[in-house]
């Protein structure tokens, strides 16, 4: 349990209408209320016309509850849940372009295997790695690959669903 006054990461999942400008409204709200967000990911959901948005917000539980309620006030936001305390599946995807020479390539591929990541592009001086998992896993892999020289990184931010059959 995150204590009442301690800053922790909270995962908020929202169903939002798929209409022009909705992301702008949400981003504007975060900026305007000075809420601290770490990531935000939006994509389609199981409902036609609705997108599912996952955002990771840093704050104490009162601040995050305020974020949740302010988001719910937006007309285009249908539902917001803080699933931090629930049993959930959370994933993030990263693409990492790492320097690779003939001498380091096999070592990199071993590390990639250990993390059950994939090599998705091979070039004369680099490899591009695709990895999926929670943030800790991505951070560890990234940490190991830094020794070889990381040229570019792109991360999606967290997406999450609660476990079990409930929706």
């Amino acid at each position, binding site marked *: 349990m995150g204590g009442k006054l301690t800053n922790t990461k909270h995962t908020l999942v929202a169903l939002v*209408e798929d209409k*022009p400008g909705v992301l702008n409204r949400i981003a*504007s709200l975060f900026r*305007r209320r000075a809420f601290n967000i770490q990531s935000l990911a939006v994509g389609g959901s199981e409902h036609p016309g609705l997108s599912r948005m996952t955002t990771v917000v840093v704050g104490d539980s*009162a601040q995050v*509850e305020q974020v949740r309620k*302010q988001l719910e006030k*937006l007309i285009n936001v249908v539902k917001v849940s803080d699933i931090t305390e629930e049993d959930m599946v959370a994933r993030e995807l990263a693409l990492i372009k790492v320097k690779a020479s003939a001498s380091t390539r096999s070592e990199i591929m071993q590390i990639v295997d250990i993390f059950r990541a994939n090599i998705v592009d091979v070039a004369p001086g680099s490899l591009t790695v695709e990895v999926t998992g929670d943030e800790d896993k991505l951070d560890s892999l990234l940490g190991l690959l830094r020794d070889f020289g990381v040229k570019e990184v792109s991360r999606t931010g967290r997406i999450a669903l609660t476990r079990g059959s409930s929706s």
Partner: protein
Amino acid sequence: MKKTGAQILCESLVKEGVEVVFGILGGAVLPIYDTFPQYPQLRHILVRHEQGAAHAADGYARVTHKAGVCIATSGPGATNLVTGIANAYMDSAPLVAITGQVARPVIGKDAFQETDITGITIPITKHNYLVTDVAELAKTVKEAFHIAQTGRPGPVLIDIPRDVQQEQTDFVYPDKLDLPGYRVVSRGHPAQIKKAAKLINEAEQPVIIAGRGIIISQAYDEFKEFAEKAQIPVAHTLLGLSSFPGNHILDLGMLGMHGTPCANMTVQNADLLIAIGMRFDDRATGNTREFAPHARVIHIDIDPAEIGKNIPTEVPVVGDIKSVLTALNEEIERREHVDWLSQIEQWRYEHPSLEIRQSDELLPQYIVHQICEATQGDALVVTGVGQNQMWAARYFVYTKPNSLISGGGLGPMGFELPAAMGVKVGCPEEVVWCVAGDGGFQMTIQELATITQENIAVKIAIMNNGYLGMVRQWQELFYGRRYVDTKLWNPDFVKIAEAYDIPGVRVKRREEVIPAIQKAMEYPGAFLIDFLIEPEENIYPIVPPGESLARFFEPSKPEVLGGKF
């Protein structure tokens, strides 16, 4: 039969029961204006600046409890509405703002008079729309009025490109709404109401803080029954004034920065705080860490996001005030609170809030008091922001429900005159007094032309001290009396009024006050009084910004003029 977008807009406004539209035209709304003659049931009031249109619609909305409508062209017309929209948003006033937009093919091309008004107003509207298809227009208007007028009311903006106004389609006004993300909680949760009642029944030193939510919900009777049954004293936020009779024994007046000592002391010593339809604004609470230190907190509000936003709440009740109080009145016990109320009477006696110091100068407190006497409180008082607002809040006794109309949250100078116009148009039978400062009055002074053109009989009292008074007071108290750029050269306001065909008088001395007010009241149309008040008169008490409400500053004990009445 097919109708144009402009006709569909007008048809939809008629369907929503709109009678008055405040606006000013320009290129991007010409098709709308061109159709107005086909809809004589829509009265258009031509203002002189779009800020005036928005404030007038806001004032109209606050007294009629239905959405006020304003209209402006694209670009500068739309941006001029922004202050008025922000004001309506802060004070939860239902407003539907209609703006013209450049034609669809040139949107995004930086066309002449193009501004992204939906982008600009996202943070200051409850919702807004850019209508890109005429088939969506009727549905959009219906949604806009629903959103503006229900739940916690607020402004909604509809931006309509000029070519959408000209495009034709079949007009069908939808009877159903499709707003999956918009739910209004009306009835409070019974378990929360029971919890609240338990705290109320157990409290020994309770106090109510009454906000504008009571007025929005028109819960005057339920609220009075609540306070009387449990014998709980009532402190008000600025906008909560006139939600409860100001001459009632349980009434403490306004709390906060310029609140009555009695209200502030009661709140600081309370063991239970019942906040109703208010949002713990910093001007009401002072330093939140030291606010009501001994009190448990019940917060009743229709907006769940207000709960716990500024003050931790033990028992929240989310719902419409009228419905919640009706339920709560069933659950609470009759109480007397004899010791608590006699303690409060002692504070009231020691710090009479309505006393006016003895002076040969013309004092604004005395003027407000005399307007109150002359009208017997049966008037709607519209204020600007600053000292004039605080004097009007503190020295008029609000016995008539919803009789103080003021820009509370945003605090816009220039609200007073156009808002008074809107109030008078909304309530033509009422006496409307506009209490202005000489600074704020000049920010929307051009609406005098609207007043004359539309024959709107507002009575204007300018508290003319030749300063931006409240700022000067802060310079005096907190900036070593360095009056940097607060001294104003002013025009002759009586001559200005005369130029606008509005009669007026200048009042320099106390004995001229009552006759001038009488003259204004007897005159059938608009009337202006330029009161040359004591230039350095302050509003007291004052809680310095960031301080606890307990640390209010009063000047040396003044002599009593009329005493408390």
